[in-house]
């Protein structure tokens, strides 16, 4: 005779069957049966108690991205569930596989405005890849198996499962069945080899072919295929924000970082190439600037796993709906070995201009206050570009993406599409736990740090070894920069009065140091990197520093400003 177990226990058994070893969450009334079941699984599954549900989802995102698995978080109904929404939206736009499990009021109370009842399915519908409400214990197993399958397959994304309290208490038989397939969902499209051949022909005949890569390379583990393709074809490679690290920053064909605060050469020459190959990116407006003046001279080939991205922003000559890894391997077969030295030299010439007018001034300044870029540059050198570097959102983020030279993949953890301030600290916690062997450094602004500062409590309780660098300019710097450039310096509510960050950090048991002099920087970074356990280094930087180059809103990428 088969034994019956509670729905809550089914949840835990499914998670174990899916290989989940880490959960971020916060208990509450409607998810108590699941937390009760979790108590018996403490040896196999580590639960990290966050201090706010937003922390749970961002930590799950960071974890997913460094561990290359599905991040998991728990929250209760009502406010617990709604607090997840920002992170779910972030995971959606940045294609991060996350499974969120929320408790819900008992099914007979649904729709009655019961205590802590909210329509989380309705609320999360536009920001999840898929969601489902489960009201019966026997439906939990298939729902969870389907959730993991959907979250991690195709273009990854967040999935939410809302489980009513009676379903958690309900008894059912359990047998784990991994999910097979969904007839309406095809996450592994068959590669159109003819289209790949046509793309190869176009690239073979190109004088100035140009390859743009995004996070799709990382998500499909196409790093090796990318380097092989690049080296055989001789084509210069530029990266989006989320693609950083897909190709090592010191690769001879790597020509830089695209977009609004990216490098000069890769932006300008977008409007000079003759064939543009985009792989695993979605031509976000921060990458393209004005699309009516974006690569109009070029024939565009776009490879993406998400069919709806093809032709969404730019008109493509050849659209290939495929996994990046598979498509690049096939493309390498048909591409002719070539060198494009002269063409790459064009990038290097423009790079020299940026180097002289901007980079040298900010990474090796000799007077005045510390600059963000010199901190990041030094950190990049000290860690050889091999640390996991997590950022929040704003000027420090753009400076980090410009000056941290990522040599390895899966190390760049940032909120790209949604631009979520407050992402950094909890994401860094998850990032460290997802790959504990690597040094994990969080670079965060004084504004964003305070949006999720409570997660220092998670660091304290779970003993997470995160190295925190606050670049403190006492401003909401990116908005201030825009106010300076586009709103006549009317600094409307961007000056921020900050607390004593070091005192707060010490209150949570972290070692903490504050510096404001250039000659302290070297030693302070060494101390940070050599510290045992979590550490906070507050660095006071120039107040009104601007991040350049910059493609202003409405401008074309080739109109990128150097000052």
């Amino acid at each position, binding site marked *: 005779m088969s034994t019956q177990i509670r729905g809550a226990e089914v949840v835990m058994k499914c998670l174990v069957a899916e290989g989940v070893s880490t959960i971020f969450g916060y208990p509450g009334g409607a998810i108590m049966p699941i937390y009760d079941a979790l108590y018996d699984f403490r040896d196999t599954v580590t639960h990290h108690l966050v201090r706010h549900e937003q922390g749970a989802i961002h930590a799950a995102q960071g974890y997913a991205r460094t561990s290359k698995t599905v991040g998991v978080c728990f929250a209760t109904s009502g406010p617990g569930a709604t607090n997840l929404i920002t992170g779910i939206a972030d995971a959606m736009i940045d294609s991060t596989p996350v499974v969120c499990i929320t408790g819900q009021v008992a099914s007979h109370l649904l729709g009655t405005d019961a205590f802590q009842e909210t329509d989380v*399915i*309705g609320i999360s*519908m*536009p920001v999840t*890849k*898929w969601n489902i*409400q489960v009201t019966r214990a026997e439906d939990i197993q298939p729902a969870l198996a389907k959730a993991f399958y*959907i979250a991690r397959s195709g273009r990854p994304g967040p999935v939410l499962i809302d489980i009513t309290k009676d379903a958690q208490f309900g008894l059912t038989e359990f047998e784990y069945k991994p999910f097979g397939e*969904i*007839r*309406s*969902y*095809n996450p592994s*499209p*068959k590669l159109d080899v003819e289209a790949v051949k046509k793309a190869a022909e176009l690239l073979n005949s190109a004088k100035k072919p140009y390859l743009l890569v995004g996070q799709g390379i990382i998500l499909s583990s196409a790093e090796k295929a990318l380097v092989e393709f690049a080296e055989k074809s001789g084509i210069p490679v530029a990266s989006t924000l989320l693609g950083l690290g897909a190709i090592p920053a010191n690769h001879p064909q790597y020509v830089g970082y695209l977009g609004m605060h990216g490098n000069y050469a890769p932006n300008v020459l977008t409007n000079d190439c003759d064939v543009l190959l985009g792989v695993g990116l979605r031509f976000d407006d921060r990458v393209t600037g004005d699309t009516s003046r974006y690569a109009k001279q070029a024939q565009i080939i776009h490879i993406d796993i*998400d*069919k*709806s991205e093809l*032709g*969404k922003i730019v008109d493509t000559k050849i659209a290939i709906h495929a996994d990046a890894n598979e498509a690049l391997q096939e493309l390498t077969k048909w591409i002719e070995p070539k060198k494009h030295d002269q063409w790459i030299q064009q990038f290097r010439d423009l790079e020299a201009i940026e180097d002289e007018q901007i980079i040298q001034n900010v990474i090796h300044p000799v007077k005045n206050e510390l600059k963000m870029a010199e901190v990041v540059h030094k950190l990049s050198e000290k860690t050889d570009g091999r640390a996991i570097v997590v950022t929040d959102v704003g000027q420090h983020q753009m400076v980090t993406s410009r000056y941290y030279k990522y040599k390895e993949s899966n190390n760049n953890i940032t909120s790209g599409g949604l631009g979520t301030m407050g992402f950094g600290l909890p994401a860094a916690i998850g990032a460290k736990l997802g790959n504990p062997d690597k040094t994990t450094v969080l670079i965060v602004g004084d504004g964003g740090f305070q949006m999720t500062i409570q997660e220092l409590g998670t660091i304290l309780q779970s003993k997470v070894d995160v190295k925190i660098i606050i670049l403190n300019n006492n401003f909401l710097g990116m908005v201030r920069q825009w106010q300076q450039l586009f709103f006549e310096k009317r600094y409307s509510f961007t000056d921020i009065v900050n607390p004593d960050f070091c005192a707060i950090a010490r209150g949570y048991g972290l070692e903490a140091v504050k510096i404001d002099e250039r000659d302290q920087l070297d030693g302070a970074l060494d101390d940070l990197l050599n510290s045992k356990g979590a550490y906070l280094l507050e660095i006071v930087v120039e107040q009104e520093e601007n991040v350049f180059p910059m493609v202003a809103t409405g401008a074309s990428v080739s109109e990128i400003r150097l000052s």
Partner: protein
Amino acid sequence: MEKLYNISIFTENSVGMLNRVTIIFTRRHINIESITASESEIEGVHRYTIIAKMTEDQVKKVVGQIEKLVEVLKAFYHKDEEVVYQEIALYKIPVSVLMNNMDAENIVRSHHARILSVEPEFAIIEKTGHAEELKLLFDELKPFGILEYVKSGRIAISKPMKTLETYLEEMSNN
């Protein structure tokens, strides 16, 4: 240029699907002119016909986003000339109009409408056709007094011969 498009969507029959589809329109500030949901020729597959005004570029992208939904099997868009479509309207009029007035009878006849039901106080007239035809009958009956009027959304079947089953087979072979 904006025009009316017929969007046909084939989905799994699960709770909330209609919402998943309509928020794609809402987010882009596209007003849905009419919407009809029903079963299709395949068991378990539901079919929506949505009529909305937008540019061809928009409709392409909207259909792309709809197809991206995990539980949508397939979505198509067509211009009016590429589909055969129909709507149905019901008109409730005082029964005295029919009894006492030859004009009303002639109107019903000439519009090929039919009388669905006659009660002591009212009669229900039914007409199928395109929206303009239904409106024409409405306008002609109006002087006699219309007690109630209701019209369905459009349903449409595309002229191309490829069946949904063929698409499904192609999808599972891919």
